[in-house]
């Protein structure tokens, strides 16, 4: 019989492997499809690991037949723009909610939380009206603004939790006594301490903006400002559905950047991701 520690270890690894398979095997299947010729991808004779028949043509097809370089450029602009702007507003906003006791604070906070939970599919047309009124329809700045506002409540919520709990108040107090003014205290002491939380907020903002379908879809019809996520939707609705390998190659291209981005940043973000104090 195994000793308890060994048995525990075995159970642990079995559990981890089960999770990893559940998470990764669906990805594997689209990856496999994306590196086969279209006919091999649908043929019943192609095996699970068709090493002999691989091709990168679907990726070239995606690149050549659709304006994917343009879509990805747009996605990158939109995701970075929305991340920066939402952080710019979320940090002072969260700080105010966490540390400043102004009347109405709670009510305002609840309305912000309320927007996090709202089912947006219900409101596409009124939102379009607002953006048309502001002359922002079919423009990249319009998408950037829409997405930064869209991720704002969640970022405020994430950061204020951190400011409230993760940063001991007396650190600021001490800094103020040490001759810092409020701004330098915030910049020199609070912000560096909040780096993991801000990093996490940035990651979430980036992912939300990159993955967002609904708003970009509603607010654009020009191909020039289309993002990769919406482009995939249009590919799904078009004749290309007959070219599974091309479709799956575009899905891989869409999914890979945020996953890789997360993989690279996870180490540095540490536990800031949970919106809770680090270590």
């Amino acid at each position: 019989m195994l000793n308890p520690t060994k048995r525990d270890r075995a159970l642990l690894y079995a559990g981890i492997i089960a999770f990893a398979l559940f998470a990764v095997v669906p990805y594997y299947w689209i990856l496999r499809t994306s590196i086969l010729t279209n006919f091999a991808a649908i043929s019943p004779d192609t095996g699970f690991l068709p090493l002999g028949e691989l091709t990168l043509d679907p990726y070239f097809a995606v690149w050549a037949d659709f304006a994917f370089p343009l879509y990805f450029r747009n996605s990158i602009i939109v995701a970075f723009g929305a991340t920066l702007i939402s952080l710019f507003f979320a940090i002072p906003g969260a700080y105010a909610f966490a540390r400043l006791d102004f009347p109405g604070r709670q009510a305002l906070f609840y309305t912000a939380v309320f927007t996090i939970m709202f089912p947006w599919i219900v409101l596409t047309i009124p939102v379009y009206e607002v953006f048309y009124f502001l002359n922002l329809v079919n423009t990249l700045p319009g998408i950037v603004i829409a997405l930064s506002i869209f991720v704002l409540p969640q970022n405020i919520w994430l950061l204020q939790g951190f400011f409230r709990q993760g940063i001991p108040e007396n650190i600021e107090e001490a800094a103020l006594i040490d001759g810092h003014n409020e701004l330098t205290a915030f910049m020199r002491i609070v912000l560096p301490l909040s780096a993991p939380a801000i990093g996490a907020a940035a990651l979430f903002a980036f992912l939300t903006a990159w993955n967002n379908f609904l708003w970009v879809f509603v607010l654009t019809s020009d191909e020039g400002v289309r993002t990769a996520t919406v482009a995939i939707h249009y590919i799904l609705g078009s004749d290309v559905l007959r070219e599974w390998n091309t479709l799956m190659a575009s899905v891989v291209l869409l999914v890979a950047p945020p996953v890789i981005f997360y993989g690279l940043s996870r180490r540095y973000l540490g536990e800031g991701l949970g919106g809770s104090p680090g270590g």
Partner: protein
Amino acid sequence: MSTDGRSEKTAESTDGTGTDRSRRDFVKATTAAASAGALGALAGCTGDGGDGGNDTGGDTGGDGDGNDSGGGGGGGGGGGSESVEVQFLSAQAAENSSIRSHFQESMQDFQEKSGNVSVSLQTASYGDMKNKLASTVQSGNPPALAESGSAGLQFFLNDQLVDHTKFFEGSDTFPDDFTVPNKEVANFRDQWWSAGAIRHTSSNLGIRPKIFSQVGIQNPMEELNTWSKFHDAIVQIDEEMDTIAYEETGVAGDLESYWGQARTAYTGGTDPWIRGNPDDPDVVIANSDMEEDRRRTDGMIKACIKRANEFSSDEAASRGDEEIPSLMLTGRVASFTYATPTARRWFAVNEDATIGWADGEGDFMLLPDPKLDAEYGSKIGVSDLEGLEGEHGGHVWGLEQAHTVFSGVSNAKQQGAWELSQYLFSDDDFVLPAWGEHYQSIPGLATKMDPLLNEYPDLPQNFQRAIENQNQYAEQYANTGGAWDLRATDPIRWTDINETISQAIAGQHSVDETPGLVRERVLTRIEESG
């Protein structure tokens, strides 16, 4: 709760000098102002960032302002030397990458030919067209020209389209050169509400010769020309082979296959669903006052569901036609009734695919929908159909491709949009490659068929056959819904008829109660929409 009096109070109460306080307030205020200012700056910078070609500027109405050329419209030149950019929202241009680049090049070509009209081409897939139009038109920002499809009728009824009659009056080709279905598509209660469909696609019977030849079929045009003969063949395939003998494309959005089947219960192109005065129409479905026609219409609804249950895969109720080429070319599906003239779809799956009978070795072949014969009713187990006959080569559609000019843009743009639509219908540089090569289908003007055949003499079998069907059944080839002249044509077709049948294929209600349910839903719809 107010447990939060912590903030910076402490520091203040310990040293609390007035000057210090105001300095800190100043810092706070500047930071906040900076963030407020950034939002303003952001909004400001969008002015030059926006290149949507939208010349309404800061105007919010978007209601016939801008560069009015003054002239009241009418056909002919107009426009003068003033250049104008029209927004054109197309679904066709999003269908595949080769038609997409053809559209893009053609917009340049049109621009050069017209001199003063440039085009901002926007695209949305057919499934998203209504969504795009809903938000743009609803907020007063319509495109000048759009492939509105049947949704355009709603806009027409609300005076959001120009009256196309004024354009038609100034034109030699419209509507005289229209195809038969286009005459119905573009006309609503004697008004020309749209410029018509720039192309037609038809849905017909599609088979896999490689499979059918194995059950002894040698001359498919003869041996599969009635539903009974077709039935016998698929029964045999079903029993002898490991393949789906017949796959219904049963997702509500792709049940045009049924529309074609339904018509084969009649001869002479009689409408199976709704007839008569549009103000008080006769709904044939489940109508006990019209017993014989009710049997034809209800019978085909039931036959469609039964055939799907008996021969199709479990997924039939959610099967889209897009998946069929992959399934048929890998031998998993033997037949379906959503075969279109577009050969490109098949070559996209396998560029070596053989289209046509090819001595029983072909991969895919297009045939007319089978004729209804007297025995089919008892074969499929639908007593309504027993003893009835009819024929009709399939279903042709055009309503989905109807192009419309919107009235919410300046007169110059309306004129430009009309010129653009004429270009899309009649300029050989656009029409012939578009429908002969990039997306094989039947041009919207009947007069374009011969030039197309001259330009492309070697057409794939499915396109050839679709054209022959068109010739054979031309006068009967009505577009489903086009002739009804109802306000609610669109939801009746897609929701009340198709979705209800799709539900039945999914097993959500029984075969026999389906026609009654369809009728109930159609009547409610007509009542509500007036």
